[in-house]
């Protein structure tokens, strides 16, 4: 029931590494158009969850469905990306020997087959889109720089730009504000809220101000399963969340 109407549906997902349970019977449902913040202690399994959704890690048990019908556990990374799931990694990963512009061009939504790309030439609309994205991530001045030459924070921004360029249905954003100044963090929150108007977004972040600024439902993970769920105020009031995560 819940599955049919959901955008993303995880049920009873477990993953273990050499006996260590990184995810433990995790269940989670994201509705279409919803933005969800996920918080939880280091090692709670947030990144692992994203790995499971994007096909990087296969769950030992449990179901993962996209759009209510598509079983993601049977698909590989490329297929999942093609379905419309985009991801920003916790550690920024960009194509270092490509320029900032080319990084965005590669991410841009377009047919992905070898022959399509072989005969592809860039359209004005695409160029304009990349230009706009460069503005958004404030890297216009670095458009012809190799991505290798960016600072840590700039790489974060570039990766966010690439995620936007893909225009996926579901965005998985792992710690977007890490390494950003407070002002930039606030701005990122605005940006995500804007995107969330017509996309489904899952954000992982440790910055409570940022999560507060998003103003969405929060899920707290702990030891591989959901510890609490609700508004930020609601979960912050939970003793266990304070104990394992927020601290005093």
């Amino acid at each position: 029931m819940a599955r049919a109407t959901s955008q993303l549906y995880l049920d009873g997902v477990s993953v273990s590494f050499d006996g260590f349970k990184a995810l433990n019977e995790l269940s989670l449902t994201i509705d279409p158009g919803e933005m969800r913040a996920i918080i939880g202690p280091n090692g709670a399994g947030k990144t692992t969850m994203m790995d499971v959704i994007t096909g990087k890690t296969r769950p030992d048990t449990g179901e993962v469905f996209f759009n209510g019908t598509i079983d993601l556990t049977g698909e590989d990374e490329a297929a999942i990306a093609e379905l419309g799931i985009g991801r920003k990694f916790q550690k920024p990963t960009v194509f270092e020997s490509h320029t900032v512009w080319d990084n965005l061009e590669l991410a841009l939504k377009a047919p992905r087959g070898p022959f399509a790309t072989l005969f592809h030439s860039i359209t004005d609309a695409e160029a304009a889109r990349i230009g706009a994205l460069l503005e958004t991530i404030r890297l216009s001045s670095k458009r012809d720089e190799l991505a290798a030459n960016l600072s840590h924070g700039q790489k974060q921004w570039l990766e966010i730009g690439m995620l936007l360029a893909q225009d996926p249905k579901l965005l998985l954003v792992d710690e977007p504000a890490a390494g950003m100044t407070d002002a930039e963090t606030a701005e990122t929150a605005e940006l995500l809220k804007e995107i969330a108007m017509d996309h489904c977004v899952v954000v992982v972040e440790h910055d409570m101000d940022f999560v507060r600024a998003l103003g969405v439902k929060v899920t707290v993970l702990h030891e591989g399963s959901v510890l609490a769920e609700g508004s930020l105020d609601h979960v912050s009031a939970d003793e266990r969340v304070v104990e394992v995560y927020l601290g005093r």
Partner: protein
Amino acid sequence: MLKVENIDLHYGAAQALKSVSLTADIGRVTCLLGRNGVGKTSTLRAVAGQQPISSGQIIWNGEDISALPAHARARKGIAVVPQGREVFPLLTVKENLETGYAPIKRKDRFVPDTIFELFPVLKDMLSRRGGDLSGGQQQQLAIARALVTRPQLLVLDEPTEGIQPSIIKDIGRAISWLRDQGTMAIVLVEQYFEFARDLADDYAVMDRGEVVLAGTGKDMAENEVRRYLTV
């Protein structure tokens, strides 16, 4: 004490630092702030010897160390917690910590208990490979690893990145505790303004490769600094 005097630093032809100067005293925390890409990490790399400088001087305890390789600087008591963690992915947590034995005397070659008190999670994961840890766990390991070398100068590049709030608080307490020991100078790069403000004894703000504002922590005027941190 550390004295950075008018250093320039280039990546190929591009200049990343222009005549940057900075001091850090034993028993004090010096905070370095600035937007993305202004040269904070570059400054720290220059201090740690990871990137050669093209002019200027770096003086540590009265000695010019500008030309020393990184490992020699580590042997002089400089430890770094780099941006992006850089733990050794295939070494276990224990082995990662033991790499910190390299610059210290044989009798000091053990992991102080305070480290595990600070980061209890590491104790549980001693035999897990560094690369398998979660992002925040890696960050904790990186800090712990630096502390194993019993440094006199601790250089931290955004140590709170990706760490859960409760541990950020612990790290804050730990840094002030270390400062209060009075044996260590600490240079901290931090984006998280409040965290920085609470810890800073001195501060410097960078913009486009230059230090544009500096002073003691007490008169770190929020507005003025924020001006350089907003877009």
